[in-house]
């Protein structure tokens, strides 16, 4: 880099460092606030969900601020400072994009951990609720439901009345949300790896003036996505008592969706697969 480029680069680093610092401060505040929400609302997942959604938007604003400042104010200076050999602007674009992606991943990891921790905290409450006896509403005799985590019909052994027995709020909240929360937690690092790899694929293509992505690369992407859904699906199945066939059907449905969105419109890929 020449001296002008070095100056610009230092300014860019300084700007991105400030954004990252602000992001770090918000992350700490977000974690502390969300954990307090969990304490204040131990059996209701909605407040935590609301907080996470609102914080999502705040982080989005911060990332957009960085992106807009780069696009509207800084990139022009990089363009003006570009030399014959090129690459300075691309380097700046990549630096900003990497910073954005690091911040996205950090928040994604935190919010998934928070939501998984919520259900970990909820589990002992749910267990206690499932242990509580339930009685026939007609004659008061204690019932023995076969399961306590789902609604079931139980015939009273005393008066033959058909009782519909419901799980307690803590129980249905747990079983309603924990499979997804723990599934995401089990698979998040795979998601981060896939996104980093996709960014690198685009950079490699840019360096070669944007040839079509190879079939091998697309197939690798498909396998990585399949692995993501395997990790997610296996964890989810453990908590939701799915059969192996149901688990596989779920994974196949998600992979099929991925193919339809990302691969099925690629004519080269379709020809290679004989479609």
């Amino acid at each position, binding site marked *: 880099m020449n001296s002008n480029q070095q100056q610009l680069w230092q300014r860019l680093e300084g700007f991105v460092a400030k954004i990252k610092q602000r992001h770090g401060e918000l992350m700490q505040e977000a974690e502390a606030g969300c954990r307090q929400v969990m304490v204040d609302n131990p059996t209701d997942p909605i407040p935590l969900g609301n907080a996470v959604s609102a914080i999502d938007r705040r982080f989005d604003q911060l990332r957009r601020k960085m992106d807009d400042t780069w696009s509207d104010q800084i990139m022009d200076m990089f*363009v003006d400072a570009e030399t014959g050999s090129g690459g300075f602007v691309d380097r700046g674009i990549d630096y900003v994009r990497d910073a954005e992606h690091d911040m996205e991943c950090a928040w994604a990891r935190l919010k998934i951990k928070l939501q998984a921790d919520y259900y970990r905290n909820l589990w002992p409450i749910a267990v206690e609720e499932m242990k509580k006896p339930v009685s026939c509403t007609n004659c008061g005799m204690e019932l023995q439901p076969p399961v306590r985590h789902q609604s079931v019909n139980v015939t009273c052994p005393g008066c033959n009345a058909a*009782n519909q027995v419901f799980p307690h709020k803590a129980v249905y909240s747990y079983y309603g949300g924990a499979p997804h929360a723990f599934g995401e937690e089990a698979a998040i690092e795979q998601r981060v790896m896939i996104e980093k790899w996709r960014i690198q694929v685009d950079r490699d293509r840019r360096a070669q003036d944007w040839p079509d992505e190879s079939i091998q690369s697309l197939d690798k992407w498909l396998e990585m996505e399949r692995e993501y859904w395997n990790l997610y699906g296996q964890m989810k199945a453990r908590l939701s008592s799915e059969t192996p066939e149901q688990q596989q059907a779920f994974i196949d449905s998600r992979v099929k969706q991925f193919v339809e969105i990302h691969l099925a419109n690629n004519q080269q890929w379709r020809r290679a697969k004989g479609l």
Partner: protein
Amino acid sequence: MVDVYSAVVGIEERLDQHLRYVREAAVASHPHGTPEWDYCLGCYRLMPPPQQNRIARAKELGQTRGALPEEVRSVFYVITLITDGALQRLPGLGDVINQGHAQVDHKARVLKNRLVTLVDVEGQKYDRVVKPPAAGGGGSLGGIFANVNRTAQLDPWAHLNVEEVQSVTLSCVFCGAPQQVPEDFECAFCGQFIFGEDPGYDT
């Protein structure tokens, strides 16, 4: 082409100078107004509002420092008009763009785009400096958690006095006998439809 590009850069620099001046004057001012802030308004051909309006508005906002946000936004609006006018009057800009000079075109386009959102963007920046933080806790996310805690208290079923039960048995409205078989709504004792009115569903 170089002259036109430099002229566009110059217009942008003057825009930044205007914004800097207005921001500093506004932050140093008071919601009830100061002579310096009123002078700044005068520079942009704006009249200060009546004093009693400023006092009432400051109380409404709970603002204790800086000029009122709407006054500041009015000045930002005038600045966008000034800058846009300067761009429009720039000799040779249209010709240079028509000749395909991408750098000038890009520069002018970025500046024009900036003007479109300038009042909102600069206004929000100013708000963050002078407006008091939301009640319910310090920090930028305090407002979020205050809102979450407030809405968590809301219970849409409270007025119905709904009691959470663990089990329910359906009873015949005619004889009071409990349902004997799930999903069978013919009373095992009196033979009537247990809800009292047969909907006539096909069985």
